[in-house]
């Protein structure tokens, strides 16, 4: 069953590409609009071999890395703190619930004015996109630790440190991991979108630069690179998450 689904999935994706490829070759999709996927691949390989984009790719990944790691660490810490303070939590609840409905990129210009046109506003955008997903899922994970687990730790007279390390964290792990997965996706979206809007370098900047220069080859190569990168990372995390959840279910 599982392998059949995988085969079908690959077939669906492949036929999508082939369809675009075919339509591009017979001219149904004009070249000024989109180049065939095969040419995108060739352009991408050429771009990567030439090395002209390496600095931009490295810059984007570095900014995402900083934004993401601080969002995961601070988001987890904030989630754990808020979880232990029910009064604060009920005050912050509407804030968390509305957070992702607010277009946070409207704050981006303010950060540019405050911090200047450098990596800091980009990192802040990535951080702000990612951190609340981490907080919400940490809260969610801690909520779902069955009460009997805590009682059991008391029966065994475990100290606080051991309780957290050996009982609470493993029990909440799957949900916290969901938070990490969403934080990764959101950090990518935040940083690349901000680069696209206004910045001096990075993948998003290069895509918008190529677009305004009518450089379709490089633009599509960079879009393909960005999407492929994000997709591979996300599918890996998605698979891990599924495995974690099934393991939790079996226990």
């Amino acid at each position, binding site marked *: 069953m599982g392998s059949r*689904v995988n085969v*079908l*999935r690959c077939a*669906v*994706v492949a036929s999508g590409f082939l369809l675009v490829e075919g339509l591009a070759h017979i001219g149904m999709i004009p070249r*000024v*609009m*989109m180049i065939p996927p095969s040419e995108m691949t060739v352009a991408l390989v050429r771009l990567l071999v030439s090395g002209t984009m390496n600095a931009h790719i490295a810059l984007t990944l570095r900014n995402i890395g900083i934004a993401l790691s601080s969002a995961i660490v601070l988001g987890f810490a904030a989630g754990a703190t808020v979880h232990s303070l029910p009064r604060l939590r*009920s*005050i*912050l*609840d*509407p*804030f968390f*619930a*509305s957070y*992702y*409905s*607010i*277009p946070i*990129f*409207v*704050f981006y*210009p*303010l950060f540019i*004015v*405050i911090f200047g046109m450098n990596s800091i506003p980009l990192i802040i955008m990535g951080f702000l996109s990612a951190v609340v997903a981490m907080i919400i899922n940490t809260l969610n994970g801690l909520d779902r630790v069955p009460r009997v687990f805590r009682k059991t730790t008391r029966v065994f007279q475990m100290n606080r440190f051991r309780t957290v390390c050996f009982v609470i964290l493993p029990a909440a792990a799957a949900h916290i991991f969901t938070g990490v997965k969403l934080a*990764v*996706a959101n950090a*990518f*979206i935040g940083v*690349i*979108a901000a680069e*696209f*809007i*206004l910045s001096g370098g990075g993948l*998003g900047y290069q*895509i*918008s630069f190529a*677009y305004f220069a009518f450089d379709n080859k490089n*633009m599509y190569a*960079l*879009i393909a690179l*960005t*999407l492929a990168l*994000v*997709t591979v990372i*996300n*599918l890996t995390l*998605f698979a891990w998450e599924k495995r974690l959840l099934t393991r939790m279910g079996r226990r």
Partner: protein
Amino acid sequence: MRRALDILILLAGLLFAWQTTFWLFGDLAITPPAETATRAIQMLGSERFWPELMETAHAFTVALVLAMLSGLSLGLILGFHRLSGEVCEPILSALYSIPKVTLYPIVLLIFGIGLSAKIAFGAIHGIVPIVIFTMDAVRNIRPVYVKTGRVYHLGAMSMARTILVPAVLPEIITGLRVGFALTLIGTLIGEMFGALSGVGFVLMRAIGLHDVKTIMAITLMLVVFAALANTLLLGIDRRVHHGAATQGS
């Protein structure tokens, strides 16, 4: 009563943070709450701003209707047909998490600058969550509900009306809430890059002119609108979920 107090404390905290940021960074970067609110009200009263607002409202409504119709129907198909659902799930999850701004040049090349590009951009943001939530809602219908319906010899129509719709509605409403927010974000981003009118365009122009007052006023309007709409939808969402929970127990 206590919830109202909580919300007041939250709002006071946010306003305090805003005012403090102003004191820290000065009027080069932001304007204080009172001044921003005055400017926002003044803009809402001006005749020049209304057409832009209407333009955005128009694009957003069409995008939302498109995202809802296509999202719901795709979600229903993928939910009822188990194999296609399983095949598409990771694909959808991947689509959900790609930075869709990078698709913007493609949308512009296809639709050109103007209304249809904004609508398309809004719709592609909103459709994926609606599909995912609808699909999950249908998949998670408990088999015992359907069996009970069969025991009562319900016809297709009454089965749908009395069992299937009430079972899937709560999750679908959650999906529509998320879809609403993302469609709004998509439409605004669309206006910021590829339009010559609309609120997003006015915002982008203000950024270009470094008109901090206008940037802040538009930001305030958008945040207030998004938060109010979300609170309203969340209220409906919770009520429906609560209803489902009490019926279920």
